[in-house]
Structure formats: C-alpha cells, structure tokens
C-alpha cells in the first residue's frame, strides 16, 4: 500500500471524499474503518476494474498514457504525449481544455493522484492495465524469466558493452537509436511481423519460443527478432513485444487516433413530429397488445412449465393471437410479466394468469399504462430477445424462463437510449453509429454480447414506442430523464394519442368500424356483442348470431342493444343489423338449461307434492321442474338416503340425463404479486454518503491518534427503553458527542462501550468504538442501554 496515495486521500476535503464515494459507491459498502482502509479498497483490482469499465475512450487513454510514461508525469508532458495522437482537425487548445477536465475527473475518481506537475496513477491501476493501449510489458518484465547467460547473449547481440541483467537490456532497448539499428538489421519479413504486433495485441504464438538463437546464426524472421531482443519469449510457445520496442514502432505515439470528443452520430434525418406520431402510434399498439394478451390469458391461460417459463407451443399460439412477429410477442409477454400484470398462479400445475394489478392497470389512461410498461421495460433485467436461444448447457430458453436475464441489460438499455437522445431531435442514428459511439463511451465493455443487447434495445424501443422511425420520441426522452417517476412522459404522450371516440360506423354487412380507439364502455360493450375482425388504427367488429347471443347471455336485452347501437352510431342502424338482433333475441332463452346433480322422477304427482311440502326436504334444495320431476342440488346418494330417512322408498337411476356445463371462468392469481424492486442507477443518497465519509474520518482520526482503547467505565449501563436509546443516539449523531452503551456481543456477552456514533440505518448503528479503537457496526436491538459519558 502506497502511503503517498493514502496521504493524498487523507488530505482530500470532505467534499472531495463525498464526491469520490458518490461515484464509486462500492467503496463504502461496507464503510471502511479509516482512510487507509478506504485507500486499500480504492486500489483493489475489482474496484479499479469497475471504475475503469465506466471510463470513456479518451479518459481511459489518459490513464493508459500515465501508466506507460514513467511516473510521476508532468501534466504538460502528458499533454504533449497525447497531442501526438490527435486526429486531424482537433486543435491542441481543445485537447488542453479536455485534458484539464479529465485529469480533475480522474482525481475525483481517485485513479490519479499527485499535484499538477507530478501525476501518478493510483496503486493497482498499472496491474489491471496489463497491456495499456495494446502495448506489451516493459523489457524489465518481459525478460523476467530469462537466465543471466541468455541475457548476456542478448545484450551482446543488441550491441551493448556488457552486462547480464534485465536492467542492462532494458536500458539498451530504451535507447531509440539502438532499437532503430536493430530493426534496420532484420529482414523485411521480420519487419512486417513486428508491424503486425506494433498496435497490439502485443503477443503472439510461435512454436519453441525459448530457442537459443544468436544474431549471426538466426534464420527465420522470428529467430532474427528473438536474437535481437525485439521479441521476448514469455512462455514455451508465446512471445511478446517489449514495450520499448512497441513505442519505437509507434513512432513515439502511444495511441493511434485519440479524439477528446466522441465520434459524431451519423443518421438519417427525420421529421421529429412524424417520428413522435409514429412512436405514439406504436405506444398505443403496444399497450393494446398487452391488454389483448391479458384478456386472452384470463379466459384461456397457458400452463407454467416445470422449469418455469412458457411452452414453445403456447408462445406460438400467443404470437398468432397477437398477430405479431414472435420476438415482439415475446417482448409483450416479458414486459407484462416484468411489471407484474401476469404471474404464475400458485397452484402445483400452475397457469400464467393476469394478476389483480392488471385490473387496476386496465382502467388507467393509455398514457399512464404506457409509462408503466415502458419504465418496466427500461429497468427489467430480462432479455426477451434471447427467447429461443440455448444456454451453455444447451437448454432451450423459453419465454418467461427464470434464466432469461442478463444483469447488464438495464444499463445497456439506458445507455443506448441515452445515445439516441444525444443524437438530437430528428436524427435516427444507424446501429453501426450507435455501436461506434458506445465503443467510445465504454471501450472496456465492448463485445458481441453487448452488441446483441444494443440491437435488441433498438428493436424493442421501436416496438414499445420509445422511438419512432429510429428517432427517440419526446415522450421517450421524458421517460429516460425522469425515470418514470414524474408524469412528464405521460403528459408528452397524451396529446399524441388518438382521442377516444364514442361512435362507430355501422354497415349493412353487419360490421361496425371504430375509426379510432373507443371509450372504455363502448369498447367493452362491442367486445361483448361483436367479434373483432381486425385491429390497428381502427377496429373492425362483426356482429353475428353467436356474438349477439353472447351479449344476450350476458344479460343484455334486445331493446337495450338496439338503443346502444342507435346511440353510438354516426349513421342510421342498418336494417339487417337490427333484424339480426331482434331475430336472435326472439329465439334466445326459449330453451332453458341449468345444473342439477340429481332428480326425483315419479308418475304420481301427488307423491311429489308431498315431498315438496315436507320440511325435512329443505336442505336438499329441491326444485319442481314439472309435475312429475323435481331437481335437486345434492348428490344422488344423499338424495336417496334422505328420502329413505323421510320414509320413502326411492330407487336410484342411471346417470344418463345429467347435465354438465363447462363454464368459461375469468381467472386471476391468488395473491398480489411481490412487487419487483426496480433497479436504480442513481447511486447512494447524499445523506448516506455524508455519513459514510464522517465515519471514515472519525475512524481515521482515531487510527492516526493511535488512540489506545479506552476502558469502559466500570459498572453496568443503566437499561433504557428502545425509543429512548434511538433518540439518544440520534442526538449524539447530530452533536457529534460520545455515548456510553451496554451491548450484547455476538456471543451474547454483555459488554460496555464508549461510542462516537456516525450513522444509523436499517437497524444498525455505525460508530467509532473508543473501547476497541475501531469503527464498528452495532445492531440496535442488542444495545441494552445508553447513558452520557461523564
């Protein structure tokens, strides 16, 4: 651990430390005991890897340059080095401004420390960046495993006086003239091999890399290079280009093309208003698709597979119902699931069913419903695009499968959409352009997997209606910036959505055309009384005998239906339609069907009169259907037994004649779904940060003072009620004062401590413990009592 780094960190102001832990929250989970702990954590490989992953290409290049140049580096030297790699058209002034800002940012991130004229990369950074900017290890490292005699040979062949150490060789290679001469010496083939490695990756594979070759006897191009120490053998079959040689081949530059500004987003220009309208149209369609899905699954739910998920056959069927491509249907299903509108019902052979949340969602306005869906999509870690792929164990990933997730998905989504938003109004960047921009913004995270996620994101954003014609829509932008918490997105979307209509066009071919979305009541009524024939901007309904009968079954009367038609029709009701309604109503209900589980049949109606009149027959729930027939709701066995008990002599009849009606039930899951915690990227809250920094400072003060543990006062701390304890602690935090507490340690022993409380949350107190001279966390329920320190 570099003490310099720790010291530098210690000298940072509280504000600067707060800024640090705000952008690197992993440093305070849990809160380190002192600044030394903080420094240690800040230079751990995982923490550094994490923060480097978030750097853009320019910032990363600055770090790489600092790593390559011998430390400490003067900022001017750094600038000169970087200036060599500037592309045409970028002035040094731009670089200077950008660099100033970048170095400050790197200081904030504690990746670089030291004053202006002596910048040093934080400890650990060098180790993580093994091949900075694609450069190999320095000669000292590269030739590490070479025996002394081999080193002597190399030094000699490189034209050195004498010496058998790595330092001697490194010094030689550090001399540009020496390297120039050596490179001059080798054959053109060997030159081109070097050029291959020059811009990285710096290592390659050759058979028998450790062969002992001398400059004069070297044959093949590789041998020529190995003999002159232009390549170093790093294993039996691997060679690497020493950093010094690499730098020479790069002509002193470290980066090839280093732009301090991100690459521009190229794209087709679109009319923003048209894009907004297209996106709104799609948003409307998407909301409708989710509703359609829930309605269909209400009546006819697909089963849950044993491994979780939805069977391929059910997905295909749903795809057909929704009239969408399969990936889009998968998206609808996954989003509906992610926001809790559908869930697996609890029973053993479970079904995928709409939840009670769906009923609440359904009655909201279209824009609010969309905001729910779209923000759910943004924050979900599920990846619908992977449906149908196979996992590493070659198992098929079904829709709604538990493994259909990628933890980086939400971040890739928001980053990708952020890039679209950065493109400016009316610009639709191509996918290549987006990927290029992303490669600049997060160069360490590139890869096929991420590119695939980006592709999914763009495709899905269009489907959901975040974007239209590839341009981020106004409501999409609002949703991105406010994260679904404010109504801005809904407000932006609402005026773009078509006004709900309260009329339809009725036609003689028994269709009703709704030339736009309908008001809720009318829509529900039409869905009942007519079949939907096509959807889209408009909805086409068709009345037929079955649909009219369905409405009659649901309790509608013929007059009521005709009145409804008349009220909501922009034109007179066509005669064939009113005829259809009356005609079906005329026949409806002429036959009655009910359920009875048993019946009594008797030719002697007076005997049945007697049964009906008998008070003991009341629990049998009898109903006289005809003079000679009584129906009962009890089972045949019970009926026979009861009649016998009443003194009759009934005989059981065969089951023929039983009526069973399968009834379509609208079903729901049993309980409320467990709301999924939305993933947030806002970082820790300011209060937490402040408290953590205070705790670190306090711990550090103690640490520095090498305060000896103070003995707790003798005697027991007086017991106090929990509320009093918490109030006293809160007061102590506010005033920064010390308290004396009684505490049950993890073994259950009663101890006594002097504390300087720093922060209290989630049932725990973080405080500096005078008696142990360290920062500890205390469970509040184990604090037995509290008292002021005398």
């Amino acid at each position: 651990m570099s003490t310099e780094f720790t010291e530098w960190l210690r000298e940072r102001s509280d504000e600067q430390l707060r800024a640090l832990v705000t952008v690197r929250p992993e440093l305070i989970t849990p809160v380190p005991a002192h600044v030394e702990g903080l420094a240690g954590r800040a230079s751990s490989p995982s923490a550094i890897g994490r923060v480097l992953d978030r750097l853009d290409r320019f910032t990363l290049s600055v770090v790489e340059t600092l790593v390559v140049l011998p430390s400490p580096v003067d900022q001017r030297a750094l600038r000169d080095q970087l200036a060599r790699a500037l592309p045409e058209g970028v002035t040094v002034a731009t670089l200077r401004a950008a660099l100033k800002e970048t170095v400050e940012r790197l200081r904030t991130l504690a990746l670089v420390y030291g004053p202006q004229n002596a910048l040093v990369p934080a400890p650990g950074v060098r180790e993580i960046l093994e091949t900075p900017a694609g450069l190999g290890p320095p000669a000292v490292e590269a030739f590490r495993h070479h025996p002394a005699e081999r080193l002597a040979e190399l030094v000699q062949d490189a034209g050195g006086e004498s010496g058998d150490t790595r330092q001697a060789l490194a010094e030689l290679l550090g001399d540009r003239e020496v390297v120039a001469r050596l490179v001059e010496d080798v054959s053109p083939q060997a030159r081109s091999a070097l050029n291959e490695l020059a811009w990285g990756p710096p290592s390659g594979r050759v058979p028998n890399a450790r062969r002992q070759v001398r400059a004069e006897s070297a044959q093949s191009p590789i041998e020529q290079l190995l003999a002159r120490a232009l390549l170093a053998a790093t294993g039996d079959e691997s060679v690497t280009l020493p950093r010094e040689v690499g730098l020479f081949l790069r002509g002193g530059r470290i980066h090839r093309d280093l732009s301090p500004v991100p690459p521009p987003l190229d794209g087709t220009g679109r009319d923003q208003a048209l894009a907004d309208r297209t996106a709104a149209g799609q948003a409307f369609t998407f909301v409708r698709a989710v509703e359609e899905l829930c309605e269909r699954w209400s009546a006819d739910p697909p089963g849950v597979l044993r491994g979780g998920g939805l069977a391929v056959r059910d997905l295909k069927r749903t795809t057909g119902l929704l009239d969408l491509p399969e990936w889009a249907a998968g998206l609808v299903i996954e989003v509906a699931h992610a926001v809790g509108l559908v869930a697996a019902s609890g029973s053993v052979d479970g079904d995928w069913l709409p939840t009670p949340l769906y009923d609440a969602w359904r009655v909201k306005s279209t824009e609010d419903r969309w905001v729910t869906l779209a923000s759910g999509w943004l924050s979900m870690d599920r990846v619908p695009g992977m449906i149908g792929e196979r996992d590493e164990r070659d198992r098929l990933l079904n829709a709604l499968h538990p493994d259909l997730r990628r933890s980086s998905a939400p971040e890739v989504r928001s980053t990708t959409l952020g890039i679209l938003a950065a493109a400016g109004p009316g610009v639709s960047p191509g996918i290549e352009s987006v990927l290029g921009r992303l490669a600049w913004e997060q160069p360490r995270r590139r890869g096929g997997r991420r590119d695939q996620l980006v592709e999914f994101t763009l495709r899905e954003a269009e489907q959901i209606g975040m974007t239209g014609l590839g341009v981020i829509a106004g409501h999409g932008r609002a949703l991105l910036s406010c994260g679904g918490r404010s109504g801005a997105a809904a407000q932006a979307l609402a005026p773009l959505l078509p006004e709900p209509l309260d009329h339809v066009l009725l036609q003689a071919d028994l269709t009703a055309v709704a030339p736009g979305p309908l008001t809720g009541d009318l829509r529900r009524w039409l869905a009942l009384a007519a079949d939907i024939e096509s959807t889209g901007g408009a909805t086409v309904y068709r009345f037929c005998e079955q649909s009219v009968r369905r409405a009659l079954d649901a309790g509608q009367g013929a007059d009521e239906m005709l009145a409804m038609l008349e009220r909501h029709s922009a034109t007179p009701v066509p005669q064939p339609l009113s005829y259809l309604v009356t005609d079906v109503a005329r026949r409806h209900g002429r036959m009655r069907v009910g359920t009875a589980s048993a019946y009594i049949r008797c030719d002697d109606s007076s005997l049945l009169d007697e049964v009906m009149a008998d008070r003991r027959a009341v629990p049998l729930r009898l109903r006289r259907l005809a003079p000679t027939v009584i129906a009962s709701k009890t089972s045949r066995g019970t009926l026979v037994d009861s009649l016998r008990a009443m003194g009759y002599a009934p005989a059981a009849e065969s089951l023929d004649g039983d009526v069973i009606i399968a009834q379509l039930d609208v079903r729901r899951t049993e309980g409320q779904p467990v709301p999924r915690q939305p993933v947030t990227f806002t970082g820790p809250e300011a209060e937490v940060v402040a408290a953590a920094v205070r705790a670190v400072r306090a711990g550090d003060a103690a640490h520095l003072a090498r305060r000896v543990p103070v003995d707790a006062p003798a005697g027991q701390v007086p017991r106090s009620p929990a509320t009093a304890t918490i109030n006293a602690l809160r007061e102590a935090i506010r005033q920064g004062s010390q308290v004396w507490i009684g505490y049950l340690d993890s073994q259950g022993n009663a101890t006594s401590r002097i504390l300087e409380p720093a922060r209290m949350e989630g049932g725990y107190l973080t405080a500096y413990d005078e008696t142990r001279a360290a920062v500890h966390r205390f469970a509040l329920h184990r604090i037995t009592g509290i008292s002021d320190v005398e």
Partner: protein
Amino acid sequence: MSDGPLIVQSDKTLLLEVDHDRADECRKAIAPFAELERAPEHVHTYRITPLALWNARAAGHDAEQVVDALIGHSRYPVPHALLVDIAETMARYGRLRLDKHPVHGLVLTSTDRAVLEEVLRSKKIQPLLGERIGADAVAVHPSERGNIKQLLLKIGWPAEDLAGYVDGEHHPIALKEDGWLLRGYQREAAEAFWHGGSGVVVLPCGAGKTIVGAAAMAQAKATTLILVTNTVSAHQWKQELIKRTSLTEDEIGEYTGTKKEIRPVTIATYQVMTTRRQGVYRHLELFDARDWGLIVYDEVHLLPAPIFRMTADLQARRRVGLTATLVREDGREGDVFSLIGPKRYDAPWKEMENQGWIAPADCVEVRVTLSDEERLAYAMSDSEERYRFCATTPSKTRVTEALVRRHPDEQVLIIGQYIDQLDELGEHLGAPVIKGETKIKERERLFQAFRDREIQVLVVSKVANFSIDLPEASVAVQVSGTFGSRQEEAQRLGRVLRPKADGGGARFYSVVSRDTVDQDFAAHRQRFLAEQGYAYQIIDADDVLAGD
C-alpha cells in the same frame, strides 16, 4: 393528428372512409396496389397482398409511390414494419425476368445473383432449366414458360415476362361503332390490356365485358380463340361479335359439343376443351389448329384446372381474361396471375352504377317461417338432405308466388337449384321452365320471347347462371342456390343489373327458410352483396303474404 380518410390495420387491410372529402383522391391512389375486398356503405376495405403489390409493380408503380400514398392519406401513423414489408415484397418482383435471347431462345435473367442461385437450387424448378448462360442468366425450355412462372410465384420470386408474344396469323378485325360507342372504361380496359401484353380485366356483370373482348380483338387484329363457359354463352358471343365488329358470320366458328368449326375467330366452351376420352384431352389440337394471335378467357374465375394446364403451354400467345371478380372459391388466384397475367383493369361495381352503366339494385331477403310439420321433418332429415329440404319447402313456393304477384307488369326471373321445385313453381305460375334438358333451340326461343315481353315470368335452373343475356329482367327471385356460393350470388344479381330501357331500378329477392341451414348459406352469400355495397333488407314472409 392528421385527418386522412385512410386507416391502416395491422393485418394489412386498409379502411377507407367513403364519406370523407379526400376519399376519392385516396381511392385512386391506393387502387393500384390494394385489392378492394369489401365496399359496404361507409367504410371500404382494401387488402394489400403480395399479388396486389406485384400487380402494381407490373403496372409500373414503385414502392415509393405506395409508401407515399399510405403515409399521405393515413389518419394514424403507419407502422414502420408494414412499410418495410411492402418495400421488400415489391422488390421481389422483377428481380427475375424472362427474356428472349437471340441464341438461347428463352432465358431467365436476374439482377440479383443470390436470387438466381436460390432458384437454381430449387428441386422443382431445376428440371425446367437448360444450360447456364453467364453468371446472371439461365436458359429455359420454351415449353416450360408457363410452368416456371407458376413455380417462381410459388417460391415468392415472380418473374416479369418480357419474352414477348408471337403475332399470330393476321386477320383484319375492327369495331363497327354504328349507333353505339365504346364506353370510356371499356376503351381504357382494352388499352390497359394491350399495353400490358397479357392480363385480366375485372368488370362487373352487365358492364359489357364482351365488348372489351371485341375491342381487344380489334387491337390484336389477329386470329382469336375465345373460351367461354357454355354453349348459350358461345352463341351470344357470336351474335355480339357480328353486331359490334367487322367480322361476318362466316369468319366466326363455334367449337362446342355439337359443332366443331375452326375459323379465324373460334369460340369454344370450357366443357368441350376439358372432355376426356380414355384419359386424353381430345380437343387439345384446337390450340394448335391455327396460329392464334389472341386467346380470350371469359369468366376467368371459373377457369377449370385443366385449362390452366393447357394455358401453361400457350405463354407465347397474347391472353386476355375477363371476369367480374378475382375471387376464386378454390383459391387459385396465383395461377391466374402467373398464367393469364396480372390484373390490368379494375372498376368497382358501385362506381359503375353511379355512372349509370349498370342498373341500381334493391336486394331483399324474405324470411319464410316453416310450419310446425315442416320443422319437424327438417329436424329429422339426413344432413345431406337438409339443405334441399329447407330450400324447397312448400311455404317458399307460396311466398314466391306472392312476390311474383307483387310485380305484375315487370319481367320476372325465378332462379333456383332444384328442378322439381322449379317445375312446381312453373306449373303454379304458368311460366315456362328452362333447365338442363331444355334444347338449345327451345332455350333461345324462350329467351327471345322473354326479351320481346311475350313471356313475363321465366323460371330458370342453374344452367342459366352464366352469360345469358336478358336485358329486360328487372326482378329476380332466388329460391335456392348452390349452398353458400358467393360467386353464384354475384352472377345472379348480374342478371338484373344490366341497364333497363326505362332507367328504373332492379329488385333482387332471396327467399330463405328461417332458422335452417338455408339461412346460414344465405347469410354467407349476402355478405358478399353487402360487401359490394348493395344494402339489403330483410322482411318476413308474413308481411309479403299479408300485403298480398
């Protein structure tokens, strides 16, 4: 929010609000690439199908025009995916072309090598191809010109046929416009066909398809083979041609069951062409009998399958198809497209009616309630017999008679399916009955008498379904039909749609038994009429009988 008259649905149908100010302009813009599917009173439905898009391509429209038309007239945003799909589908047409090559004869060339490779790998197409000529072309056996077009359409790469046509034997034919003039749309239709080379003209019944055929012949000025549905229709074609063109009786031959004349213009029936003896089509030689310059197919939607096969071998001759509808009950629209040609002209019924070319019609469905005994008998009848039973009940006969009495001064046609029912009706009404066994001579005599108003009521069976010309029938009563055939319904309505001398409207009654399969079939047929814009009414038979 735009306020265009068009709404694009996700199933690729287009809804056009006809009362909208810009509806007419919009209709013109979308008609080339969308098939009119339904045209009821307020909202017309068009459908974009691959065939329709390719028809548009064949007519020289490009994807940009299509997309512009949709976006320009649409009320709501058009889904991007749909536009992309349209562009992709349209781009499929014309990637492959059939050309004439000076050395290799017929060749299939491609502007896209990958497509050609795909085609070459197809097992079904391979045998039709000859040697490869360079990277982008392959020879095709000239006899397979039709087959290859059919197969290419099936795999989704329709070929543009630019191989041209043989001129055929020259024969002077001219229109003789004395006392009548070619109507504007008839001229347009004939010209559209001629410029396209081959193809189908869609015109409603009564719009004068025969004259379009004659105009096409006058354009071709070559020997012509005309294929029609039946003998009566053949006679009528002949009469019409003599009347409308410079052709004389000697120049026109009839090739039917009874006569086998081959003349510069020959009219043959489908039936005779498809007659087989011992599995061999005996009259195939007719196609080779002369060097035909033009082949006319009447009623293309009824073209029997063997004729398709024969047509496949006739791809070098100009072909014109005439029909009232591209809808085929057997779904072989694709074969019509690839073998006869793309749609070249189309005009909706209602529009023709508005222009006064066809008579407006009033459609009425009369619901007959069966008597209790009839209902019982119906419930007990075998399922095969059910339709026949409910279609021919005595109750219907009574109502039909009452309907005829309602129109004492008009020419009434009674159309039905079952002979005994028709005989009974004929007897009750004292009207002659035309059925399958009626001699051609007798039929023509009766038709003439009906035309001359010597007979007021004529009872006809389905033999008269097609191509009979009864200009003065103003009332038709349909008592039974071929189950739910929509196309039959259209034909029958066509019987009364021809313009009347007095300019009056026509009436079309369907007598239907309530609560039976008859009613279901009727509903199916009538849906077609309603979709064509013929608002119909339903009345109870009791009202008819009461008003009697």
